[in-house]
């Protein structure tokens, strides 16, 4: 698509969504035989497979941690997942995404239960639309639960962006290409932010609104994640989070 004149017409985005609408999302838990846990996610045009192995032995041994499990995360794009064929193997972008995605999930995993072991999270982007990193985190979170890894709660993620000067939820590829800001956010069920990146241009006020919008989006995604697990297990296996907290205290 070449740059359209407007990305929002009569309050509707070009794919017909309102500012607060997310693209169609479909989680399926437990789709792989070999992995200990897995999840296939279609999130708009993103097609994402996540698998979890572990807790398992760490090689080489000097990477072991004597007091807790280490979490490893590999975000990988299939060569055919994008418009122009991508060379196989990690590049700088995927290394950064793997790092922040791991950090987004690591805090909810009860690592102290499995000293000296590794929990491996593998995310394959089979088709990439905008938002593949948040899609990956969402699928990985369900795959961790499917693998029976003890967790404090699930992590949910979504991106907010700005198009035609308006803050909107969950950019698609065209909106991302021609939009002016991108804010991927991940959140745990306590309302705490576990991933926060941003590039583009946002005023402080716009940022505040965008962040609130992301928090709402994450809550909706959490419901879908929970449903996917219920579908597979016939019951709610997500951790029981007594009272989600809506932001903590600061020294403001």
């Amino acid at each position, binding site marked *: 698509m070449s740059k359209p004149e407007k990305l929002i017409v009569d309050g509707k985005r070009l794919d017909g969504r309102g500012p607060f609408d997310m693209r169609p999302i479909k989680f399926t838990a437990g789709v*792989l*035989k070999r992995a200990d846990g897995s999840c296939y996610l279609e999130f708009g045009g993103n097609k994402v497979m996540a698998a979890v192995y572990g807790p398992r032995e760490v090689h080489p041994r000097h990477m072991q941690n004597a007091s807790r499990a280490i979490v490893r995360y590999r975000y*990988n794009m299939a060569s055919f997942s994008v418009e122009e*064929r991508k060379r196989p193997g990690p590049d700088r972008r995927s290394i950064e995404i793997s790092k922040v995605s791991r950090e987004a999930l690591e805090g909810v995993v009860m690592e102290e239960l499995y000293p000296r072991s590794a929990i491996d999270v593998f995310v394959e982007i089979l088709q990439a639309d905008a938002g593949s990193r948040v899609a990956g985190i969402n699928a990985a979170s369900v795959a961790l639960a499917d693998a029976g890894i003890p967790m404090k709660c699930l992590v949910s993620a979504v991106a907010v962006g700005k198009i035609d000067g308006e803050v909107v939820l969950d950019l698609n590829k065209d909106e991302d290409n021609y939009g002016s800001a991108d804010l991927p956010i991940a959140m745990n069920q306590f309302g705490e932010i576990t991933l926060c990146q941003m590039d583009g241009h946002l005023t402080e006020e716009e940022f505040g609104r965008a962040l609130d919008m992301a928090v709402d989006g994450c809550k909706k995604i959490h419901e879908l994640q929970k449903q996917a697990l219920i579908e597979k297990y016939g019951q709610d296996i997500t951790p029981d989070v007594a009272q989600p907290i809506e932001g903590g205290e600061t020294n403001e």
Partner: protein
Amino acid sequence: MSEDVIAEIKRDYIFSLAAQGDRADGRKFDEYRPISVEVGVIDKAEGSSRVKIGNTQVIVGVKMQPGEPFPDTPDTGVIITNLELVPLASPTFESGPPREDAIELARVTDRGVRESGAIDLSKLCIESGQKVWMVFIDVHVLDHDGNLMDAASLGAIAALKNTKVPNTKFGLGEDVPLPLNDVPVAVTAINVGNAILLDPSLDEGNVAPCRLTVITNKEGALAGMQKSGVGTLTPDQIKYIVHIASEKANVLREKLEGIQ
């Protein structure tokens, strides 16, 4: 129980079943697990497929872009086949550059497509000596439950049948189907004791001394062959496998009919 002991027990079990004419999942010696072939699963690719053989699952994407021909074949398109054993697909796969197993699978898949003349490469010249179509066949293994070779090969040919030459994207006219000549099919066998089993499951493949993959074309002629593994096969065993592979290939080829 140690892993070695478990492996030993599995081996004995599979061999003694085979001696009685049986397999762990009840299949006949020459019977494949259920096969499903879907195409068009990746919109971003020029062609794509998802193939399942039992729980083994691969996705193949075909991308095409103009590039320079090799100097000695100025009018001929170029095939580049790659296969990734991503660590998501098996507890035994590792991150990092492709290892010999992945390279072998990719190269055998590639030879099957190439040597059978499956793609009519002479029709993929854009400008003689300057620009031809590069056909990238990328096999992405998602779940490794045995017999990756046949899944990769079947996936590749299904994705190629699904491929449109993206002329529009590069200002070269209308998109057209990729010109195909043949439909090579790989059939893999193992010998377990004196039994020859097709489509080895993961456990069967692990205990078998070696595998033989036979790739045949529409007319039943051989287009490729690869023994893999330390074990041996007698000439008679090989001839027998070649014979049943060429028959069985016709059954697999039916799965590809109507695909486009």
